[in-house]
């Protein structure tokens, strides 16, 4: 509702008509001083001290009482009057800070390298970075693995029982969910890939597509991840050192 804009003041004849505060000299009642303090605190770009307010409120106003009453008035509201660093200001009620947060979902496409790496992890899991590189024939950047971890489609499974104890990667239930697979075993095999036209031409006799497994249980050649290496950062730093 708009405040009543009275372009032409009604002719008030009554002596006892409620007077609207008239200029700084008029000493308003407590309620009026509260309104002024409220407006000052609202409009101010920075928190106000008791002195700041005192200098702007009508002579003789009880600033502490005004602030106390205002703080009480707003205590249960969506906005509270709070004291920060000795000065007063309005702030969103702390239990409502979530309403000021906005989630923005960005749709991003996976790069070709990330897509290939993901596919190799899916089919060849548990698989180490070195094995991925061997299959792809190119080095896999740290960023690619990090990005895939961020999608939560892959996870660190354990460590290969081999020199250097490299980390093994596998897919997650989120991966299955995203790609609409009931189980990882539903990924098409060689014959199906050929049938669907993904693979054509002569296929060498030694070429095979593994039957993937994302079982939680570690394989025989896997060790559990050590606790201190659950941090992806540490893990990657270690790997980077090996290169």
């Amino acid at each position: 509702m708009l405040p009543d804009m009275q372009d032409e003041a009604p002719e008030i004849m009554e002596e006892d008509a409620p007077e609207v505060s008239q200029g700084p000299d008029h000493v308003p009642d407590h309620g009026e001083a509260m309104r002024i303090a409220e407006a000052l605190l609202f409009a101010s770009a920075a928190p106000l001290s008791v002195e700041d307010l005192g200098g702007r409120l009508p002579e003789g106003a009880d600033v502490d009482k005004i602030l106390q009453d205002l703080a009480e008035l707003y205590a249960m509201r969506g906005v509270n009057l709070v004291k920060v660093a000795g000065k007063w200001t309005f702030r969103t009620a702390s239990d409502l800070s979530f309403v000021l947060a906005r989630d923005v979902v960005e749709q991003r496409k996976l790069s070709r390298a990330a897509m290939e790496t993901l596919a190799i992890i899916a089919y060849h899991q548990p698989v180490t970075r070195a094995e991925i590189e061997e299959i792809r024939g190119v080095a896999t950047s740290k960023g690619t693995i990090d990005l895939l971890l961020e999608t939560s489609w892959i996870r660190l499974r354990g460590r290969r029982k081999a020199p250097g104890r490299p980390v093994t990667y596998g897919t997650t239930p989120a991966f299955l969910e995203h790609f609409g697979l009931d189980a990882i075993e539903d990924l098409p095999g060689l014959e199906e890939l050929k049938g669907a036209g993904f693979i054509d031409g002569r296929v060498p006799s030694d070429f095979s597509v593994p039957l993937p497994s994302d079982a939680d249980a570690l394989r025989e050649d896997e060790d559990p991840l050590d606790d201190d290496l659950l941090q992806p950062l540490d893990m990657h730093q270690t790997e980077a050192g090996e290169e």
Partner: protein
Amino acid sequence: MAKPLPFDDVEMNERAESEPALLVDVDGFEGPLDLLLELARRQKVDLHRISILALAEQYIAFIEAARRMRLELAADYLVMAAWLAYLKSRLLLPEPPKGEEPSAEDLASALALRLRRLEAIREAAKRMGERAWLGRDVFARGAPEPVIINRDSHYEASLYDLLKAYAVQRQMRFNARVSLHKRNVWSLVEAREALERLVGHLGDWVTLDTYLVEYMVEPAMRPTVLASALSATLEMVREGKLTMRQDEAFAPVWVKPVADPAEAGV
């Protein structure tokens, strides 16, 4: 426009009320219509009942007084004076038989309407000015709290993309394995370019082989490098850029740039 009127704020309100007689000075007016409106106000009657004839006379008198005082008047004021003189004569003379032209009464009421419109918009402007302006009378939140934006990346990928990436990747590898080895050849052009680059850096006799070492990292390349280099060298000798010699069959081939092309020869 002979003289642009001052456009910046002029305290008009004080002027109007306090003066018993209008000073002959157009500086305070926003054009002839504004002057007319002020003259009309001085008739102290409702604008609807204004005497246009009286107004015309007053305006003309004002302009004539200004001219006597040799005040420079903007053309707008003079044009209005001329028009009002015409209107005055029309209003005083008996109406001619109904012709094409609008009657004097029509012209007068059109002028009265224009004055009322100007008066009305003046009033509107005044009321707008009296409204509670944002930043003057009312204020917005002084310290708005920012909205925190949580970015959440959602990756798109279809099963089709996944399978295609896998198949393409695997297939590329086995296709690479069955393909024939590409023959590595050091072409004559490449040999010639390399030699031309070398020539500038040499001072004395050097064995050709020394230069070619860097191209012969792969043993398989050795024959093609030697053959192309020799051909290119022979060509450059023919052009007089190089001198070459070989002490005996199968001995290293020595080359030397020709400082002065006239010395060229084998």
